[in-house]
């Protein structure tokens, strides 16, 4: 388990991350934020590449910065597209395996396995220089995997991949999470993260804005109303009842007169009152759908 405690990182006067505390548990966790939010800085701190200006980053109680004991348990896939260009994908991955303590034979075997794991196939035998962006991304993922670490830090791993490759990579990441690995995946593409996990960390301007399961995070944002879509036979009666409830901030009607959207500030109270109302009256409720219970809504609420 990686533990980040009250960590800040400054580059001169520029703040990379600011007083962040979090833990990353087994399973897949999405690290979300717009470009410049501090995702890569946080991942670099967790990968032992950067030293915190203040605070501590440790893996199972051992400091991470430049510490071989901790780095043994960690696989890191950086975001920038940098490589040793004149080697093949397999050679590169095997070299990384050697640096992780594998023998030449083990490194070759594990490199082949890691390349297969990310669906690199025969392309792994090509020189990196001649690979497409998507293939290069897969090589980066394979090098992070080659020594089978329990912790994987993946910085924008799906960048540049075509849709089938994305789907394969998402599937692989979910699989590693299910296998019990601690996987932290950064992205600014919400739907990608949503496809991998519902557990998120949300960074903005170097600060941790929210962490937890998406619905929990959404409910925690009490100050912002949640949009609930309802469809029923008697929408007008429902609206006139709801508008008096303290938990309902506003109600708007759809075009057909049967649909309405309520802005709700307290979901618990709203559910209780709606239940009572349905017990009293026959409203013919057909649909009740929270519109904001997804990453996109959470993200836009938190960062705007």
């Amino acid at each position, binding site marked *: 388990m990686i533990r980040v405690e009250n960590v800040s990182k400054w580059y001169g006067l520029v703040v990379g991350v600011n007083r962040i505390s979090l833990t990353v548990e087994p399973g897949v966790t999405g690290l979300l934020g717009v470009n410049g939010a501090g995702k890569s800085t946080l991942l670099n701190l967790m990968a032992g590449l950067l030293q915190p200006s203040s605070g501590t980053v440790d893996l199972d109680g051992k400091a991470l910065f430049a510490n071989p004991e901790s780095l043994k348990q960690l696989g890191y896939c*950086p975001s920038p597209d940098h490589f040793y260009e004149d080697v093949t994908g397999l050679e590169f991955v095997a070299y990384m395996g050697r640096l992780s303590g594998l023998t030449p034979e083990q490194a070759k075997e594990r490199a082949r396995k890691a390349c297969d794991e990310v669906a690199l196939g025969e392309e792994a035998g090509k020189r990196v220089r001649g690979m497409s962006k998507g293939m290069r991304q897969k090589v980066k993922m394979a090098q992070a995997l080659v020594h089978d670490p329990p912790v994987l830090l993946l910085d924008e791993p799906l960048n540049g991949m075509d849709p089938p490759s994305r789907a394969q990579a998402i599937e692989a990441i979910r699989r590693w999470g299910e296998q019990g690995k601690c996987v932290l995946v950064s992205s600014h593409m919400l739907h990608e993260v949503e496809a991998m996990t519902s557990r998120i960390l949300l960074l903005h301007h170097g600060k941790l804005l929210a962490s937890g399961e998406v619905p929990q995070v959404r409910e925690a944002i009490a100050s912002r109303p949640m949009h609930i879509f309802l469809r029923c036979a008697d929408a007008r009666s429902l609206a006139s009842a709801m508008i008096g409830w303290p938990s309902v901030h506003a109600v708007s009607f759809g075009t057909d007169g049967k649909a309405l959207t309520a802005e709700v500030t307290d979901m618990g109270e709203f559910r209780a009152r709606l239940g009572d109302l349905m017990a009293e009256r026959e409203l013919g409720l057909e649909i009740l759908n929270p519109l904001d219970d997804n990453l996109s809504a959470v993200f836009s609420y938190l960062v705007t």
Partner: protein
Amino acid sequence: MADGAILAIFGFTARQMTRSVKGLLFGLLLAVPWAVALLLRLLIWRGVQVPMGGVTLYGILVLAYIVGFLVPLSTLFFGTSLIADEVEGGTLPYLFGRPVRRERLYLAKVAAMTVVLVVGSCVSVLGTYFLALSIDGAAAMSKEWTTLLGDLGTTALGVVAYGALFSFLGLALKKPLFWGLLIGFGWENLVAWLPGFLKRLTLLFHLHTLLPHSAQPQGLVQQMLAASEPRAAALVFLAVYTALFLFLGCVLIRRMEASAAEREEG
């Protein structure tokens, strides 16, 4: 971590050096004294009067070109870029993210560079020896073989010491090539010839002391090389400087963070 990792870094670094444009350039530069020796032979063969024999030419080429130019230049270019290339190429996170002690990683890379440059420089000395001294006949060659051994040893020591210096500069300074040129070809060449103690702060002075040509102060080259310190002292100075530069390099790499390019990504 395991020695296998160190061997892998050593092999990978050596392979990259020998397959790079810089490696090709080094290959060309180490053949320059051979071309000069061949030119001298050609001139003698065509009956042109030349003011020096093969032994003198060999001494000048080893002193002025190999020890005074090729060794500092090659270690400057390879040493300063040893880690800087990883930083600029964005590949440093791959190395620093692995369970290898930074100091060992650094020393493995310095060792790989040193071995490649020692082999190349010594091949240059050997080729120069055979091509230059064969002008004076087989007798000269057999007479000067101890000089050859001394030159090979001094050249290797030069690569080790300069390699440590420039590798350290590559870590310590923002424009290591500029400062390296200034130190390697400004400070070293100017101060090494000055009277007084200051010249002991150069590597070149101690290397000159070790060059065996200085054992026989007869000709121009020998007079230039006349030693003013015991060879044992020169060896101690070189060893201390090398150890100091390697130690400082290890200290710096231990504290070094991975590339700034990372943080621009967000």
